[in-house]
């Protein structure tokens, strides 16, 4: 296309597994549509740039999260298990178990892993910026992250976002 590409500016501020998907899905899809994309990773979103993404879900703090089994018949898989919060919040390993079940469901449904989507983003030209201030606060170093990440602050993001066509805070 000869016209100037549309510009997309995303902020990824969350580090749980469920919130890890939206920025990478939107960024990769936008780049596939020939848009120019920058994702600014700040606060807990910064952990999504770690070489290995350890993102989990925490059902106790997400009352609307469907609790479903990734195996069995379709009917069984569609049951939404109502787990009382004193169990989901107090049982050791509950988040780990729920996380592995959600990952299994994603896999069953043909959804890419977060790491795969992140790699696809980079392949189609999405730019990642890590928030330098958050790195200092939480003690991250450049070596913690995947290759190909830029480092900067609010001004660097805002300069790009100021003439972006789409800006989303996730």
């Amino acid at each position, binding site marked *: *296309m000869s016209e100037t590409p549309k510009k997309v500016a995303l902020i990824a501020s969350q580090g749980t597994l469920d919130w890890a998907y939206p920025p990478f*899905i939107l960024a*990769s*899809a936008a*780049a*596939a*549509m*020939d*848009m120019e994309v920058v994702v600014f990773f700040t606060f807990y979103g910064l952990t999504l740039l770690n070489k290995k993404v350890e993102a989990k879900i925490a059902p106790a703090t997400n009352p609307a999260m469907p609790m479903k089994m990734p195996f069995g018949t379709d009917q069984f898989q569609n049951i939404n298990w109502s787990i009382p919060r004193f169990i989901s919040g107090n049982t050791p390993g509950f988040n780990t178990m729920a996380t592995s079940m959600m990952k299994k469901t994603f896999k069953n*449904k*043909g*959804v*890419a892993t977060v790491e795969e*989507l992140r790699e*696809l983003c980079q*392949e*189609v030209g999405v730019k990642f910026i890590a928030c330098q201030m958050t790195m200092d606060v939480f003690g991250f170093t450049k070596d913690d992250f995947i290759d190909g990440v830029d480092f900067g602050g609010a001004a660097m993001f805002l300069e790009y976002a100021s003439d972006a066509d789409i800006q989303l805070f996730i």
Partner: protein
Amino acid sequence: MSTITETEVLDCKGMNCPLPILKTKKQIDKMQSGEILKMISTDPGSTNDVIAWAKKTGNTLMENSQDGNIYTFYIQKS
């Protein structure tokens, strides 16, 4: 059955959003202007996604059809 003769075939069966669009983009990038890609998907969302993608990227969606849970697209590179 379509009367269109494709240059390349891309099988995206079993993949979910946004993978069919990403794979389509990567395949189209490797092809020459005027060549035709046949993309096959099982993602029900891919119909609207491919239409939107083609509109945005300027490639031509020549034909799309559904047979059961299989979706077929013929895309001509601009």
